[in-house]
């Protein structure tokens, strides 16, 4: 088993929480993990990404080579496109369809949508609306993770177990909201 994942978005969107859940699930399966994160200056509203590699064999590089990522999980559509050169030809993009516009020269949203649609394997979801409809506005990132579950090749139940362990200290309501978010994401895909 080997999955190379690029997680991306804008600083503060919660990509590291997604990484934490995947990492926890993988750790529990005794898999090897490497996860390179971006800290520091880039967090101030800039683009952020994390390279997450999971494998049943030892992993050498902390970074994913170009053209090798199996999945891009993105909290923002333009950020998903930023890392397309890292995606394997048969790789999947699972992205939020909601632009995060904090720069004056943000590209045309329709053209962005077309460029995404032109790629072979893309799931684009309005996770913010889905989260609002379900009254769990703070769990949009877990909806995205739910939608990515099949592409990741990690059992749904194992992701749920990881959510239970990671969010346990935040109380039952938070665990419940995030479990629902995972399920909504899986259904939406």
């Amino acid at each position, binding site marked *: 088993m080997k999955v190379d994942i690029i997680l991306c978005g*804008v*600083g503060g969107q919660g990509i590291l929480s997604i990484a934490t859940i995947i*990492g*926890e699930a993988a*750790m529990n399966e005794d898999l*090897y*993990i*490497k*996860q*390179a*994160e*971006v*800290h*520091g*200056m*880039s*967090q*101030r*509203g*800039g*683009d952020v990404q994390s390279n997450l590699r999971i494998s049943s064999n030892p*992993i*050498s*590089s*902390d*970074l*994913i*080579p*170009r*053209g*090798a990522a199996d999945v891009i999980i993105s909290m923002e559509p*333009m*950020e998903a*496109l*930023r890392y*397309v*050169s*890292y*995606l*394997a*030809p048969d*790789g999947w993009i699972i992205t939020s369809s909601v632009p995060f516009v*904090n*720069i004056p*020269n*943000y*590209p*045309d949203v329709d*053209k*962005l949508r077309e*460029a995404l649609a*032109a*790629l072979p394997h893309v799931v684009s979801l309005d996770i913010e609306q889905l989260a609002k409809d379900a009254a769990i506005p703070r769990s949009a990132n877990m909806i995205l993770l739910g939608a990515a579950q099949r592409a990741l090749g990690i059992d749904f139940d194992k992701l749920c177990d990881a959510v239970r362990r990671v969010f346990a200290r935040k109380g039952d309501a938070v665990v419940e909201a995030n479990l629902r978010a995972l399920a909504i994401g899986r259904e939406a895909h």
Partner: protein
Amino acid sequence: MKQLLLGDEAIALGAIHAGLSGVYAYPGTPSTEITEFIQGNALARERGLHSRWCTNEKTAMEAALGMSFMGKRALVCMKHVGLNVCADPFVNSAMTGVGGGLVVLVADDPSMHSSQDEQDSRHYGRFAMIPTFEPSSQQEAYDMMAVAFDYSERMCLPVLMRVTTRMAHSRAVVEVAVEARPENSINYDAQAANWVLLPANARRRNDHVCAQQALLEADAESSSYNVFADAPDHSLGIIASGIAYNYVCESFPDGCPYPLLKISQYPLPKTLVRQLLDTCQRILVVEEGQPFIEEQVRGVTDSRHILGRLTGQLPRTGELTPDSVAKALAQWTSDHGQCADAKDNIVHSPLSIEDASLVVPRPPALCQGCGHRDVYTALNQVLQEFDHARVFGDIGCYTLGFLPPYRAIHSCVDMGASITMAKGAADAGQWPAVAIIGDSTFTHSGMTGLLDAVNENADITVIISDNLTTAMTGGQDSAGTNKFEAICRGLGVPDDHLHVVVPLPKNMPEITRIIREEINYHGVSVIIPRRECIQTFKRHAKEKKNAKS
């Protein structure tokens, strides 16, 4: 026991388990998480290990040396440019030697993700004649801490541990010990003849440390971290250090077809290097940072045989990636027609989007609601009234004031340089000369420069933009909080020209009036806009709410 740890966390836990008594550090990306981990660790708390932030890297290094003098184990952590700040005690710590183990952990930042240069700390280790470790994995980083502390005590020298951004900020599963070694007890055996660096003592110590170098190199030759793996194809030999070793391995999933020498302990083991040189036609040196090994290897043999960053096979600057290393290796295999398998493994054909202009840069920016924004708004408004105003910036979130929409600063060089550069500019006849510096940066390296300015009553206006924290690195305590007026008065800033304001849009008339008046006053003035960092404010509000519920 297995744990998923950041490289920084593995280092921190390794140090605690090695019997650490104190960590001394100033926050700096990518080293900050080491000290933060120790601050939050249960065993560290139970043992009462020192882990409070220091005012700067020099005070940190000296305090750690003091702890070592008393026989206990101390760790100093910093980013690479911090080593410049504490270069004096660092270099001289080799002359004094150590009592308790002393490890100086420096996190380099090739590609300058959050830094102003990409200096390579291994040069400092060599320069100061201090043994240097460079782990290639999080597991090695954890294991090496115990080895480094033991080695430091055995050789009576500090040990430099060098990591880079991708090691510091990457997580992996690490097998860690269940029990920690006890701390050292106080030891009064330190000999003044070693620790008092009068010339007579220092000359003797210098001879001793120079004589130790051969021993250090012999230890590096037999170190279990420096591994030579022979392979059938001797058309090329590879030397790879630290995490660069991983990129070589990534390129050859079925094993490296060329002899491969991994280096993780210095001084450079020249016998191992010669063994490779003698049997291989060419040598490719793959290292993160500057061509430190490459230059030394070129001194050992015919330099035409040595390939790497100096000869264009690898990029001269910036951090390595699995792609840049794979490209160098693929180039070699295609030029020499050998190891076709390897070539197949390392060439990927990436996807792309047709219209590249659809992806634009998203640079970091000052947060919405940040007080620095109001400071720059006010400053820009006043400086419009002058033809040639110059604003000397400093290191922190407010450096982002260089970017649109503010475009407010003209320099940013090193911690504290705003005040001293403004003074130098004023000495040259510049007016208005404004310095803008954050609270933590001011106590780190700004106070002494302000004293220079006061002593000459330089015609400068200093703005200490106080957000009550070290914000850029994530909101660590700032050494001077609640002390800035007293510090400025103590340094001789007159009360009439020392102002505190609250940077909020509603106070704009007052702030602009004060800035204008103080620019027109031809002497040193200090304005302190003070409002808590919006990030720590939110965090504190959340903590309060959680405490209530």
